[in-house]
């Protein structure tokens, strides 16, 4: 059976499709999270150098990876909305932003908790930590710009431009922060050299997939609300079963 993918790029059909997909994503996210935690805490052995503390990485690394990828995906959606004027892309961009910001926050928080027993300090001005903090600022800028413009069309376009400028700036910021860090002090602890146990890798990978599925679930739920809100004057919305009842 051939599926017409373009059909789903319209909010009308995407709304229904997302509604059907959400339970599947949610259930698989929950199951994979359980499996990942089981492997991570029961199967995987304690690390020779870091003891039990390293187990923070099963949430820390996936959330760092997600916070970065979600920014790129958000910027890509925003750019598509700006260039091709597709409604759904802009809605997706604004639906992704809060989840990305939360992942950036979780990444910073868990990083601090990992740093305390390892480095003896909650916060180290390490290049990666600093870049992550700046990434969080970029998310907050996007969200607050979007929130402070009343006209949704202008909000979408202005925030899209900001996201594009931000994503062009991210490499420059990352490079300059790395430069700045090496100028001040060498990085104290590096991950390289400690070979990871196979179970650790499995646990981390499973948690990464679980976090992706979670992010997709929440984004789809949010985008459905945004579609409802933006399109409330159209006929198809008033004919939806959940609106009629």
């Amino acid at each position: 059976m051939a599926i017409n993918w373009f059909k789903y790029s319209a909010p009308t059909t995407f709304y229904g499709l997302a509604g059907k997909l959400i339970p599947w994503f949610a259930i698989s996210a929950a199951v994979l999270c359980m499996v990942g935690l089981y492997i991570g805490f029961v199967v995987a052995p304690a690390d020779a150098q870091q003891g039990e503390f390293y187990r923070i990485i099963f949430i820390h690394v996936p959330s760092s990876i997600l916070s970065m990828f979600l920014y790129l995906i958000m910027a890509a959606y925003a750019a598509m909305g700006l260039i091709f004027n597709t409604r759904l892309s802009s809605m997706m961009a604004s639906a992704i932003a809060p989840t990305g910001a939360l992942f950036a926050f979780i990444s910073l928080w868990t990083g601090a908790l990992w740093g305390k027993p390892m480095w003896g300090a909650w916060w180290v001005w390490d290049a990666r930590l600093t870049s992550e903090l700046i990434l969080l600022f970029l998310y907050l800028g996007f969200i607050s710009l979007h929130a402070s413009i009343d006209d949704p069309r202008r909000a979408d376009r202005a925030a899209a431009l900001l996201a594009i400028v931000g994503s062009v700036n991210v490499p420059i910021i990352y490079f300059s922060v790395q430069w700045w860090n090496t100028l001040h002090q060498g990085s104290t602890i590096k991950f390289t050299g400690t070979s990871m146990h196979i179970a650790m890798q499995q646990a981390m990978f499973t948690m990464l997939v679980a976090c992706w599925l979670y992010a997709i679930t929440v984004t789809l739920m949010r985008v459905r609300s945004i579609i409802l809100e933006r399109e409330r004057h159209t006929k198809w919305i008033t004919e939806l079963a959940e609106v009629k009842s």
Partner: protein
Amino acid sequence: MSLDIWMRENPLSYIWIGSYAVAFLIFAIEIAMVVHKRKITLQQVRLMREADESEEG
């Protein structure tokens, strides 16, 4: 200082309370907010629809 000693003696509770509980709490709050937002939006749309219908009728 006492926190330092406690975390070294109970590393697993430290990472569970400190990291995983916080992360899952954040996820739970986010889900609750998204669900709440959907409820509110649906309510608004229903109200608008009813207002439109009473105007027409």
